[in-house]
């Protein structure tokens, strides 16, 4: 119940986040979708993209500029259109402005803050957003959209549901799958303990129907208790969830609150899950007056047709690993959708193919081991695994999904991280020293360096002539503002040409003659990088209405530009793997206990025949752990391999690496599983005590 509610809250919050920003969608699509309406004056609108004054530190400020064409112009719901000089800020930006008054950020957007952007129009309590009024001159220059009517948010939300929604539902299914398996296995164990009572009820005359009804009522009561506990737990975790960040920002708590209709749906889904799992667990159980019998038929030996889905996927990735496949992929990646389609189909084929082929692989590997083992313990364990391969694999199948998907994603992400690091290394601006900046733009006032020098937070400024090939800097200033140096023997007055917009210059060459420059940039040394926003505000206020000036920070140029969703999804992958492995270990413990109780007679016979308790313990350890360990290793191996193929296909310089956290989760979970089973097996000694089994 908790999982379903948390999942629903997450989807709800993501959809709501899109919905809050859906009005901006009209600005992007105005050219196609907005048609003049008689009697309606257009609302002029634009989202700032030029310059970088719409930034605070290294975060972007979404800046929307509006100008009403007349009284009939459409308005944003609940927000009167700001006039020239007026502006609204989001709650997140208001907090930044309150905490950093010295940055004077508001003056970049106007002269008067007239309110806070309402929740309905703001994506997050942390989002940095501005809605400002613009002058007529600004409204008539550049790319400005004319809005006649704000459309409903449905289109934006449906677009969103089509992509991220599918990924989320897919991810949630991966998490829910092992939980359903766990419920089924736990039900079997629970029923094994209640079976004697059911048999006694049959003996005193209860009909099969009455016993079934009692079983149903008992299960239902447990589910109701679970629903209540799950609902309370959801209320308890709600404050924690509101601190969770997605895309670098938190959700509005109101968006995380599950609506009543969704709550009813969650209750129905939980009930259905539990009842189906209950029925699944009890479907082979026959309660008769003389006791309870399980149709203990040995499951059918899985056939090779189960490889039908896995084989094409593996063949695809083997081919893509070969030079011919990799070349084809790279040659076609930018031209058509076929490579991406093949990769996606291949990944799905391997992932679901593993689930389908799992019992066959488990059965055949264990049969092979049984055929060649010299140990009685291994023989017993592997034969049991072979005979019960479908059932045993089912209890670990959730791990296959989570470890495969997690390993694939984390391998892929590690490759992207490497690409990002390379991008920083190849960014010319990353050659600037910390707490320096370059101020550039055609609209800067003349002799701007003198004005800059007057700012108390600026320690030095140098004007640098620039043309389309780069900036002209003398050797003396080169070492002061950048981490580069002129060759040995050069004089301080020697000049070099550096192009910050291209990859870092590896070797600096002194110019023999001074080239012609067409504009001037300014290299600025700040007292601290915290003064950057003061500089941005100063530059913004110096260029009037224009936004065509840039302030590039040397400190931030050294930080990779990574979409925050990538590391957050990586964190979710870690959590998903951890949760799934935890559930799998719980399932393993429950199914091991269930298996011991079910096979008590068999173990008693073995013990009477002279098998020691230690030998029995080792047998149970092997038969419980081998499927989990081998399945985990196969899933991780395939996930890493396919992730590697995937990222290698995208770039020949990517080097996927896995983090220590990944290994800690996988190895740690398997170690926990070993310890957990080790703690369970001593019950063998008790349940097979010859003294207590004389009546068997």
């Amino acid at each position, binding site marked *: 119940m908790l999982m379903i509610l948390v999942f629903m809250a997450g989807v709800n919050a993501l959809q709501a986040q899109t919905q809050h920003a859906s009005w901006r969608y009209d600005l992007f699509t105005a050219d196609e979708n907005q048609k003049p309406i008689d009697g309606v004056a257009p609302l002029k609108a634009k989202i700032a993209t030029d310059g970088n004054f719409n930034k605070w530190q290294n975060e972007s400020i979404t800046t929307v500029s509006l100008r009403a064409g007349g009284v009939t112009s459409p308005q944003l719901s609940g927000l009167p259109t700001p006039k020239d000089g007026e502006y609204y800020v989001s709650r997140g930006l208001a907090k930044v402005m309150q905490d950093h008054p010295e940055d004077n950020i508001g003056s970049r957007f106007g002269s008067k803050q007239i309110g806070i952007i309402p929740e309905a129009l703001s994506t997050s309590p942390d989002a940095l957003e501005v809605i400002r009024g613009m002058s007529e001159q600004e409204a008539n220059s550049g790319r400005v959209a004319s809005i006649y009517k704000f459309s409903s948010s449905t289109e934006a939300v449906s677009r969103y549901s089509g992509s991220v929604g599918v990924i989320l539902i897919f991810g949630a299914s991966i998490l829910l799958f092992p939980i359903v398996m766990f419920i089924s296995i736990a039900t079997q164990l629970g029923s094994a303990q209640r079976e004697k009572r059911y048999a006694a009820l049959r003996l005193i005359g209860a009909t099969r129907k009455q016993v079934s009804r009692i079983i149903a009522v008992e299960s239902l009561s447990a589910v109701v208790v679970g629903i209540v506990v799950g609902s309370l737990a959801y209320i308890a975790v709600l404050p924690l969830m509101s601190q969770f960040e997605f895309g670098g920002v938190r959700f509005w708590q109101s968006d995380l609150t599950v609506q009543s209709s969704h709550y009813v749906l969650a209750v129905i889904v939980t009930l259905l899950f539990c009842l189906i799992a209950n029925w699944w667990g009890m479907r082979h159980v026959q309660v008769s007056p003389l006791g309870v019998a399980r149709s203990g038929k*040995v499951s059918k030996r899985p056939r090779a047709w189960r490889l039908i889905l896995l084989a094409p996927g593996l063949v695809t990735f083997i081919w893509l690993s070969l030079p011919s496949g990799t070349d084809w992929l790279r040659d076609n990646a930018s031209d058509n959708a076929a490579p991406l389609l093949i990769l996606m189909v291949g990944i799905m084929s391997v992932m679901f193919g593993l689930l389908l082929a799992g019992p066959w692989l488990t059965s055949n590997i264990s049969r092979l081991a049984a055929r060649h*083992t*010299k140990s009685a313990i291994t023989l017993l364990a592997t*034969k*049991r695994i072979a005979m*019960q391969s479908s059932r045993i694999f089912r209890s670990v199948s959730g791990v296959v999904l989570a470890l495969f998907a997690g390993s694939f994603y984390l391998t892929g992400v590690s490759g992207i991280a490497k690409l990002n690091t390379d991008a920083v290394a190849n960014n010319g601006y990353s050659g600037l020293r910390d707490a320096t900046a370059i101020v550039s733009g055609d609209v800067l006032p003349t002799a701007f360096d003198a004005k800059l020098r007057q700012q108390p937070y600026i320690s030095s400024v140098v004007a640098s002539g620039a043309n389309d090939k780069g900036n002209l800097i003398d050797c003396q200033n080169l070492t002061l503002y950048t981490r580069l140096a002129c060759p040995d023997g050069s004089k301080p007055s020697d000049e070099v040409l550096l192009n910050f917009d291209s990859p870092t210059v590896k070797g600096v060459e002194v110019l023999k003659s001074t080239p012609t420059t067409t504009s001037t940039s300014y290299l600025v040394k700040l007292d601290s990088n915290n003064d950057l926003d003061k500089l941005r505000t100063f530059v913004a206020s110096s260029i009037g209405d224009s936004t065509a000036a840039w302030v590039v920070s040397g400190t931030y140029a050294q930080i990779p530009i990574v979409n925050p969703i990538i590391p957050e999804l990586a964190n979710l992958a870690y959590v998903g793997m951890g949760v799934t492995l935890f559930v799998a270990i719980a399932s393993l413990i429950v199914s091991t206990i269930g298996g011991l109780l079910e096979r008590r007679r068999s173990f008693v016979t*073995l013990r009477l025949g*002279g098998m020691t308790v230690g030998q029995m313990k080792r047998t149970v350890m092997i038969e419980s752990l081998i499927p989990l360990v081998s399945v985990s290793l196969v899933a991780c191996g395939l996930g890493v391999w396919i992730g590697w193929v995937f990222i290698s296909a995208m770039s020949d310089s990517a080097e996927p690496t896995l983090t220590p956290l990944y290994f800690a989760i996988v190895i740690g979970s398997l170690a926990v599983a070993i310890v957990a089973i080790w703690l369970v097996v001593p019950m063998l000694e008790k349940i097979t005590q*010859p003294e207590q089994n004389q009546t068997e």
Partner: protein
Amino acid sequence: MGPSGSGKSTLLHSLAAIIPVDSGEILFDGRNIGKFSDNKRSILRRTTFGFVFQFSQLVPELTVIDNVALPLLLNGVNRNKAYAEAKKWLEAVGLTDKHENTPGEISGGQMQRVAIARAMVVQPKILFADEPTGSLDSLNSEHVMELFIKTAKDNGTTVIMVTHEPSIAAYADREIVVRDGQIIGAK
């Protein structure tokens, strides 16, 4: 021999080192096995004794031949030798064609014959049997008992058997009658 609840199974379990005894001694080869540790009793059972119970209690996941070879494998006997021995004993009990079947695929009488083969494969000095025909019809009981006695005699194995059926007791050379935990007669 004795009625239900007379203590005959408890006596058999004590003699077979399945359960420790509260008082008295159980001497085997001059050693008091009643005081052995659990581990030592387990090793004694699997190396020196054989067992056949009312329900054959074969391991359901193992094939017939695996079940018979299992005690030898537990004793650390080489796999090839263990399976060759198991094969020999399955031939002796007339189940040559059932090697690869699982217990679920053979009849109750056949299961008891597998249990006899499994008990005899370690060439026990004593074979303990607790109602070995209790779950069989009379025809199968007769076949199993004949096989049981012949196998034991051929291999010089002592059989200690518990039953409440006079017709089954008639196969024995010596009969001890138990009632309410006391030996009340012998012939």
